[in-house]
């Protein structure tokens, strides 16, 4: 009991450093072009880190989590030794990138308006 308490008395310093590092990565990604938001959530779909507002975070986290579960199921049905790592959902407006891991789910939402913009520019020319 005492050992456990000692272990759980708080996050380790190393972990904190890594967490800072992760936060810096998240900041960096969200600074890239057309990136709408970055979400890191745990396996239950509860957001740990997010750059989006609450509604969108919950919406995307839940939706993509379901997609990931279905994707995992599909991949593993075909070959049980296999496992899903990434999914990339392209939609008309957005591109949703997700990395699935047993412990967490990382999601990046990127808009695809670039192509549309280009067309507009070409038309203008």
């Amino acid at each position, binding site marked *: *009991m005492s050992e*456990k*308490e000692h272990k*759980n*008395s*708080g*996050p380790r310093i*190393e*972990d904190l*450093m*890594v*967490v800072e*590092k*992760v936060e810096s*990565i*998240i900041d*960096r*990604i969200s600074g*890239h*072009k*057309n*990136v709408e938001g*970055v979400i*890191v959530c*745990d*396996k239950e779909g*509860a957001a*740990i*880190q997010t750059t989006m507002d609450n509604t969108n975070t919950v919406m995307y986290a839940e939706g993509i989590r379901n997609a990931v579960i279905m994707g995992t*199921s599909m991949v*593993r*049905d075909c070959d*049980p*030794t296999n496992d899903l790592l*990434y999914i*990339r959902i392209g939609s008309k407006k957005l*591109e949703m*990138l*997700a*990395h699935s*891991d047993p*412990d*967490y789910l*990382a999601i*990046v939402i*990127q808009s*695809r308006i670039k192509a549309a913009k280009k067309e507009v520019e070409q038309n203008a020319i």
Partner: protein
Amino acid sequence: MAPGKPQQQDQGKAPQEGGASKGKKRGKGRRGNFEDDYGYSRRDQNLAKPPDQEKLTETQLKEELVRNLSCVDPAKMKNRVVWDANEKGFILAQDEEQTIHMFHLDSELIFKDSQEEIKEYPFSLSEEVEDPEFVEKKSPPPASADPSSSNDGISDEQKATEEAEDADEKEEIAQAKEEKPTKLLNQFNFCERASQTLNNPIREHSAQTVPPPRSSYKDYCNAWIIYDLYESDTANRPKATKKVAAGGGGGEGEEGEEGEKKEGAEGEEKKDKAKDTKKDKEREGKVAAKEKVRVRKASILEGTAAQEAALAKSAEGLKILERLVMQNVFNDVLHDFKYYEDASDEFRETGEGTILPLWKFAYDRAKKHHVTSISWAQSEPDMFAVSYGSFNFMHPILDGMVLIWSLRNTAFPEHIWMAPKGAMSCAIHPLQDCLVAVGLYDGNVALLQLRENEENSNRSVILKNCHIVMKHRSPIWSVRWADNDMDNNPNFYSCGMDGQVIHWVIDPSASGGGGGLSGTPIATLHLPVPPVQGPDGTNYNLFGCARAMAIHPKERSTFLVGTAEGNIFQCSMLYGSRFQQIYNAHFLPVAALEWNYFHPDVFLSCSEDWTIKVWDRNDSEPMYVFEIGVAILDCAWAPYSSTVFAAVTEEGKTLVYDLNVNKEKPICCQQVVTKKKVRPNRIAFNPYYPLIVVGDDRGQLTTLKLSPNLRNLPRDPKGHIVDGEPRVTFEINKMTKLLSLVRDPESVTGPKTLTLADEKQAKNVLSIMGAGKK
């Protein structure tokens, strides 16, 4: 009375009974014939006696035992007390009734002669007095009493029958007064003749066992869940067998597969037991409220800790996601890299080509640093290491860094190592990508370990040379990996401005600090000049300041070192005191040296004295000399051809030569930096793709794609690209042919060179360069 009378009576009653159950009728019949229900079978039956039954004699059996019956239950407890939780004490329990109801049955039978019978069946009184039988009372009170009573819950059909019966009865009464009762008929003119067969007695033997424990369990199941469970089971199995072996005295562990299965089952049982014990423990634990609180606290902490751990773990995934994002952002560049080929190349008669700028790599903290070296990984086509330091000795930047870049993520380096001093050179191990050797400005070497392991959880450095004795006494200009030694330990060479070449071996047994690296000086580059007299009269041997080094790709013991004095030393690892050859190559420091990838004797050098030279190591004079008219800062052979090399000039141009196409002019000359003041310092070919990367003195890297003309690959007559051994021989022959072209006139007119052999010219160059620098 006639003997058939009772039976007739029965039959006569049958219609009266109407909807009464069959069982009743049967019972009546039996009563007529037999003494008791099961009598017939009992007579035939041998009574089973328990073996331990006491045997009594006839007299004993006949002996009368007197039993007194009393209305008080002697077995009943007197003075019973119960615990009262309110009173916190025992109180006397209230005695209940002494009566025990053994049996209770509401009878539907009435006595024949009783008043009730007369009430019920007034008409039959006179005729049936002698009948000793009981008359069965109708279970619902007589429907005949009131034919209109439809509310009794009797169905219409029944009612109809009863009405018919009533009619019959009336007739019957009329007849009965006149004559003896005759056979009665129902409305269907149905005559019932009952005959009784022997019925087998119904016997019931039942045994009740303790029901097996049941529990309901629900789960989702499919192929991969089963697979996972099997996996975890096999992972846990060795432990289970150990436990069993320990529990069962070790005898069971030596059985075959079946034994294992058994053990598995036993293991599960044990698990169950363990679970039970766990549950018990939990129960015990739950009794103590304080502990409960503790547990709860721990679980909350676990929750946040788990989240943080997940977040910490997500770094890898996020890195990959960043790559994907970059892929989307630079989608067009990626397409150019993969698919764009300059179509105009086909129409250029001179065989010239172009280079197409692709990604640019820049890191915020390296903006003021110079790119001091670039090293591509040999096994990962997209990874390269870049060292950042400073070439400006007037205003040196004190710190430096080594960044590991990937083409997949152009926005941010994969790994960062901030060096305490300027990093002057770096090299990725050709086989073990995770090892990067770094030479620092202060003469130290460092070894980066990129792969994660137990000791190195955050993937940084680290073995560093801390030995004051062994370190270089001036900046290390070049580090190069050698083949692993006899013990398969990675080792590399470094050369510095102090004229030393040091061999470093990584000792895996010694770890931490600088203990993992052990250095041995291999050679000191003494200049081929007589000792110089110092101010106090002592003689000094002058040594060359090493600027560049190249290890022979095949003969790994041979290497070249270029010095700041312009000499190139060809040395051997095996004997350090002598040099195989000293070439007086340049008038200014040798900027770069590289062996040809195919031809074993050819190497390339360049210098700030405006020249690039191609050498045959057996010849003290260069084979080809290219005078550009501007300082050359770096040059490199192409890995795909023996005759193609590229160089960068101080002006910011990239030159690509193919000696096979044009021996005098570059087939590509293109500006690669956008700003005028920016000098590209380093150039390196990707070993897999037609890609070069140029690093400049603003810490920026530019990747350039070579157009098809710049990377002509040998083709066989059918047009397929030749590969493997024939290609190597082809490339070697190509180079040999080129060398022979130059050599032939040598015997007559001397080498075809454009060397600035005149010392005056050299001095001029020196003065120009000096002026330029100032």
